């Protein structure tokens, strides 16, 4: 079982690599949205900073007070920045909701994701996945409640203890629990998406029920599959941040840009790795499942002829 799981883990990475054009396309969309969302800010920053000697405070180092001062200016390049980022992020979410069907079709069917096939699958599954997202929001409500409960318990612990550590440790532990719960929820809903694509399941509540059953029966293998990839993501992301912040000097903009984009690429690629691994897992599961005996109609009841009662 462990060997099979390991094979799935690596096969998932292989599948992402095999159909890497998906990763690049999504990454490019994300990058373009990123550029669009910051375009206004960049223009104003260029206008204010390009011919200013004071801009060297941001070039030779990164003077945080210069950022605050920029933010406080009437024509601040930072002030206009918030809403576009949120707008484009929402747009990207919609895009991913659409694209997921196409991505999973490629992974589940293991066929080359041609443009036509990709968009057909994406369109075919869009509303199903939209409904799944609504189910997800409902499932997340108790976890949000748990987070709120954690916060209120933290306040109570803080009030009772003169040491900051009990409260801090409680929050750290609660954060780990909530994170693991979120991973479990994602495993469940990703499986429902895989079922929807693999079996062309139209009823999302049925897909969710089947996915839940699979998750329940194969909890550790599926959870470990996701957790491993998540750990790799976090480690690589932290390493990227470390390189960006502590190892790159203040001036090499190109290197900083490349590192930052590599981090986004890692984040995206590993997320698809999780999806691909689960798709492979489901394929294997379907392939290895002992077929249930074919349905045969029960024998027709045999009616014995009953002798007619003599008429009175």
């Amino acid at each position, binding site marked *: 079982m462990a060997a099979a799981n390991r094979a799935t883990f690596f096969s998932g990475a292989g599948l992402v690599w095999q159909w890497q054009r998906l990763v690049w396309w999504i990454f490019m969309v994300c990058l373009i949205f990123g550029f669009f969302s910051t375009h206004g800010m960049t223009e104003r920053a260029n206008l204010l900073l390009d*011919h200013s000697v004071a*801009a060297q405070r941001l*070039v030779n180092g*990164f003077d945080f*007070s210069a950022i605050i001062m920029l933010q406080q200016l009437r024509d601040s390049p930072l002030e206009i920045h918030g809403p576009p980022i949120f707008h484009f992020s929402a747009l990207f979410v919609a895009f991913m909701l659409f694209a997921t069907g196409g991505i999973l079709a490629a992974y589940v069917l293991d066929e080359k994701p041609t443009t036509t096939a990709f968009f057909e699958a994406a369109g075919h599954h869009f509303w199903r996945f939209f409904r799944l997202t609504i189910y997800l929001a409902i499932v997340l409500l108790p976890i949000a409640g748990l987070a709120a409960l954690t916060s209120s318990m933290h306040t109570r612990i803080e009030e009772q203890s*003169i040491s900051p*550590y009990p409260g801090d440790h409680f929050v750290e532990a609660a954060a780990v629990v909530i994170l693991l719960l979120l991973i479990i929820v994602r495993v469940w809903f990703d499986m429902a998406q895989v079922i929807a694509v693999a079996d062309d399941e139209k009823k999302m509540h049925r897909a969710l029920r089947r996915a839940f059953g699979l998750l329940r029966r194969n909890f550790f293998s599926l959870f470990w599959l996701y957790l491993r990839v998540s750990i790799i993501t976090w480690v690589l992301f932290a390493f990227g941040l470390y390189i960006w912040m502590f190892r790159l000097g203040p001036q090499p903009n190109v290197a900083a840009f490349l590192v930052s984009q590599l981090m986004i690429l890692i984040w995206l690629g590993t997320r698809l790795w999780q999806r691909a691994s689960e798709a492979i897992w489901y394929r294997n599961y379907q392939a290895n499942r002992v077929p249930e005996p074919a349905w045969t109609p029960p024998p027709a009841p045999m009616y014995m002829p009953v002798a007619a009662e003599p008429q009175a």
Partner: protein
Amino acid sequence: MRLTKVFVLAASVAICSGPVFSQAPAPTQEAKPTAASADTAAKPLSTRIVAYQIEAKLDPSKHTIAANETLTYKNLTGQPQQTFPFHLYLNAFQPQSTFMTEVRLAGTRGNGPDSEWDPKHFGSITVDKLEVEGAGDLTSKMEFIHPDDNNTEDRTVFQLTLPKPIVPGASVEFHIAFHDVLPKVVERTGYAHDFDMVGQWFPKVGVWWKNAWNCHQFHATTEFFADFGTFDVKITVPQNEIVGAGGDLVSSANNSDGTKTLAYHSEDVHDFSWTASPSFTVVEDSWTGSQGPVKIHLLMSPGHMGSAQRYIDAEKGTLRLFDQWYGPYPYDRITMVDPPHGGTDAGGMEYPTLITLGTSAHMPQGVLAPEIVTEHEFGHQYWYGMVATNEFEEAWLDEGINSYTEVKVMDELYGKNTSAVNYPFVQMSETGLQQSGYFSDPDKDPVASFAWKFINSDSYADITYGKTALVLLTLEKVIGEDTLRQALHTYFMRYRFTHPTGEDFLKTIEEVSGKDLRWYFHQAIYGTQVLDYSLADAHSDPLKWWDGPAHATQKNDKDEVYRTYITVVRKGDFIFPVDVDIQFDDGSTAVEHWDGQDRWVRYRYDRKAKIQSAQIDAHNQIFLDRDPFNNSFTEEPDPRAAHKLRTIWVFASEWLSQLLAWLT
């Protein structure tokens, strides 16, 4: 988070090889008089007007104090005095007090009390009995007064009229029995868990100043003002309590009821505060300055030991630079109190020879908050403790001057560009910190305002702290850094242990610098003008025939002459002389000095070179300039700063997108 823990661990290891820690109860040995204290005993440093003797008993379970106070007031006002006002600060923490009214309207420092005003935040001080030597029980004669706002519900000031006046030179003795209910930590005082910070806790007489009694109500943004004298305070607490106080420990004795009584003595100070908690860890250290050794008594709260060495280092560095720059520290001790988590509103406060600090369990090494608060609160030993200005009416004289010296000391100790935040990827200077505050609210109130008359607490903080610091930093350009340092030294030595005014300070600067600086002070201290110069235009064009004789000198293309215009605009109302440095692409330079009187000025050059750059205040000395980004022009654009910002924002935008896409 993990990185922080590594930092904390590293700091803790470093500390363990440093000073001595002990978890033991408060030291019981008698404090040994030092050279400095021996001197002060021989000759008082201040004119001692008051002598307080207080016996207080803390009930740590209820956070209440029962006390008896004897105040001997010496009438040095030069005229008979029959009416005496007293502060009862703890009554500010009542729902209908002036303090709370102002907090609800305009905010306060720190978190302030709950807006819902939870009863556990209530604090109070009640005078149970007031007798005057020779006049008997005058409790019934106490009368609450409200000199600032006529709020009849405010009970932070009362006055007492004696049956007969006290003649000049005579003394009067008040015997006051009172009890305190400490609030949950708010505005520098109160309790949190088993920690009690006891500040502004006893009936304190007002100050006869400018030929009148000065005794303001307690406001949301005001601090304190009192006369110098001596304090003999006996504090009784349970034996497990560790106590720190603003005085020398004279004796300690265990009582049969499980308590102990600690006797403290302090002189040439104008206030006395103390703290108690069984959870403190004591860190002892010392520093020797021009007046002899100074004992550093640090009380650390649980979980904060990672900051202990940082506090000590900052304290020693500050002691050294103040001693070197401004004058000697004459006391033989400094007590530093680190409030526990949940009690941070007791932090960042100054009392004579006792300061409260502030840190957290996971304070990153690159964030110099523990160092800044240590420096700032110690600085108040000079600008408030010894130079005892009126914090109600001229808060800039303590907070503002102190913020300026904070910049100077922090820059010296931790680097000019890294004195507030110091990481390879982000830095912040102390000057930048002050600018960030001031520029957010630059023109609502003048520096010279009564503390409670600012439009809100933000404006109070931004102007009183930030603007004053920047005013003095900018003044360095006019009179020189060394001259200003000398002026501060003169001001300190001349006015220590007195109550100088703002004009005393400004006149000292003028005297030392030998310059009439009224044009500057009028705008910077008494006005709300904002300083903002802008390099509005700079360009070079080849001369044409219609440009006249200069064009005639041009013989061929190599000789092409360019006409360069540089326009400088004064966008703000603050008039300040500026220098404009101009560089041409043949390496030649020009410097123009503009008095800034007009709204704009335009310079013209006909040269065989085009402009390369023009810059107002090229040496970055005008710290009051609200927008340093419009002070210069370079012909060659340098988009690196904008690119860097874009990289960060694109990344943030993409990452947010990726996080949200998790939902799909």
